[in-house]
């Protein structure tokens, strides 16, 4: 390690791990409080039934499968550049999916009935499929990490990588399908959602990877070789552009169907989600990062590329907020052609603000992912080590 003061560095590590642990513990306590008092202490209600915890959880789960993309490209497609990053990518995937699943589980009305979920299985439920998809993903990534780290197992690493790659595509399609099957809701029920979630996972996963990698390099006083930076930034730019493209298509297709015009108008022009969409999702999450990644003055500088990746993550939050909360805030069209009113708020636009316990629960999930990453990186020495000569020989950095 190149760090000048090892003792100082060690102290910092323990501090970070402790902060992560504390944030996770507070999240757990908040969940217990919600479980005890009921969801009355949250901002969720009978119209907006999924709130901030689900926004965070779905981000973590989608990004978890995307971050594994880096590993897949190394093992499955044999790129030297990505191979040395595979262990870190596997670790991040495990950490983030743990955080995401913890949030989903702890937000359940009856979190104590986890065993019921594990022992009762409804084959028509997309949620039910996920109960199988996630543990298998977990297992596959763990085996994959093992084949990479244990020299004797190295020969199996390619097969394990391939299996993991296939599974993660299925998994993300499964997450997207949770919404795609909600046919009665204007915001969801689109067949585009499964492929869109896959491309979102590529983008968000890579962004997380770039940020974590930058932190690790900085921590160890190293700089990322410029050629590698360039490769990663090109990839990120492609993914961000693809997500933007899908977003445009999704809204165009939606607006094309007469029954969804009112909903599109609501999101795009006339609601509390309008700003989140244009400013958060489009500008911060897509256009700014693309500008940073393409502009000659910024595209070669690690600082700007890292900032672009950070913005992609912030944009992802807004995108899910608009998608999940905005989609529910708009009333169901139970009686097309009628204006409706009721004591149950039929026909009324709902608004949502998260309460402290659910914010703490959501952030607690991030805490779990952070703590697992911090400890894992430290204990398992996952800093990507590049052999530049090997890289050049493999042609892994020429675009």
């Amino acid at each position: 390690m190149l760090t000048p003061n090892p003792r100082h560095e060690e102290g910092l590590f323990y501090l970070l791990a402790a902060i992560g642990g504390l944030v996770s513990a507070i999240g757990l306590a908040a969940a217990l409080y919600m479980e005890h008092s009921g969801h009355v202490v949250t901002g969720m209600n009978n119209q907006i039934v999924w709130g901030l915890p689900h926004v965070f959880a779905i981000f973590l789960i989608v990004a978890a499968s995307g971050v594994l993309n880096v590993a897949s490209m190394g093992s499955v497609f044999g790129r030297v550049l990505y191979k040395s990053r595979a262990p870190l990518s596997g670790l991040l995937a495990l950490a983030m999916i743990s955080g995401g699943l913890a949030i989903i589980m702890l937000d359940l009305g009856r979190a104590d009935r986890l065993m019921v979920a594990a022992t009762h299985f409804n084959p028509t439920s997309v949620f039910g499929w996920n109960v199988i998809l996630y543990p298998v993903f977990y297992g596959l990534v763990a085996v994959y990490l093992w084949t990479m780290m244990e020299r004797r197992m190295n020969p199996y690493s390619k097969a394990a990588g391939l299996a993991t790659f296939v599974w993660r595509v299925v998994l993300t399609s499964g997450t997207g399908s949770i919404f795609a099957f909600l046919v009665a809701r204007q915001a969801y029920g689109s067949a585009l959602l499964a492929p869109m979630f896959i491309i979102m996972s590529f983008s968000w996963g890579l962004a997380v990877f770039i940020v974590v990698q930058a932190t690790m390099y900085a921590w160890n006083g190293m700089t990322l070789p410029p050629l590698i930076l360039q490769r990663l930034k090109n990839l990120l730019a492609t993914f961000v552009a693809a997500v933007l493209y899908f977003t445009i298509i999704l809204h165009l297709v939606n607006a094309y169907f007469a029954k969804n015009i009112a909903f599109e108008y609501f999101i795009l022009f006339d609601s509390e989600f309008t700003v989140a969409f244009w400013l958060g999702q489009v500008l911060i999450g897509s256009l700014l990062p693309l500008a940073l990644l393409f502009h000659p003055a910024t595209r070669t500088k690690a600082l700007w590329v890292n900032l672009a990746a950070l913005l992609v993550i912030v944009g992802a939050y807004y995108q899910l907020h608009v998608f999940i909360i905005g989609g529910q805030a708009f009333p169901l069209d139970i009686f097309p052609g009628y204006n409706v009113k009721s004591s149950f708020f039929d026909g009324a636009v709902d608004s949502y603000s998260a309460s402290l316990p659910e914010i703490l629960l959501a952030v607690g999930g991030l805490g779990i992912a952070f703590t697992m990453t911090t400890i894992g990186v430290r204990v398992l020495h996952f800093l990507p080590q590049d052999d530049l000569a090997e890289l050049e020989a493999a042609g892994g950095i020429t675009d």
Partner: protein
Amino acid sequence: MTAPQIPDSNPRRAFIAAAGAGVAGLGFTVIAPGLHLMAVGQANAAEARKAGTVASPAVRWGLLIDANKCAPGCTKCIDACHTENGISEKLPDARQNSQWIRKIELVDRRNGRKTELPMMCQHCANPPCVDVCPTGASMKRADGIVLVDRHTCIGCRYCMMACPYKARSFVHAPLTQQNPEVPRGQGCVESCTLCVHRVDKGQQPACVESCPEGAMTFGDLNDPASAIAKRIASVPTTQVRADLRLNQGVRYEGI
């Protein structure tokens, strides 16, 4: 339109059942959703429904609501339902209270015509809530009544996302004053049971009995001699959002 009896004609449902069976085939035990509950499902209930299939029920309980008769401002059916089922909580945020049945005021955008009607779980023959429930807690009894098993509901609220009629409520706070015949549970989702505990005793649902205008008819849709079946055969009736092809047991006339 007159609503026909289509036995599970929804192609989407058939597709997810098949796809789901594929996932289930990966070496995991499949427990039929709500199978153990079927023991309680007497009252002409035919036989237990196996996962992914639909029983051929001899009885199909249904409700016909005449919006023309429903009196403006009247909430007798709602009060009766809430008394019968022990729904009494009044949370500060009204959006968190359970409502198994509600009055909806409709104004036709074309001509301004006003209508009122009670809305509750429509007891779909192809219920999306049952399709999406991960544990099988959402289940359809062989006689067509859609219920939530309060012992297996984990409170994920996916069924609430899936229901096109906003028919379901999530119990947001601890409960008091429960009716022993209608167990409810904090952290679980619930909806109109068609007063299954009364129907099983040969009685009518509380809302039907309470309506002074006689706007609601309850009965067996499969029995051509029943009042409800005769009425449906003779006047135009509507299934709300019939385009979704859920084939609800609750029908309306006058809208």
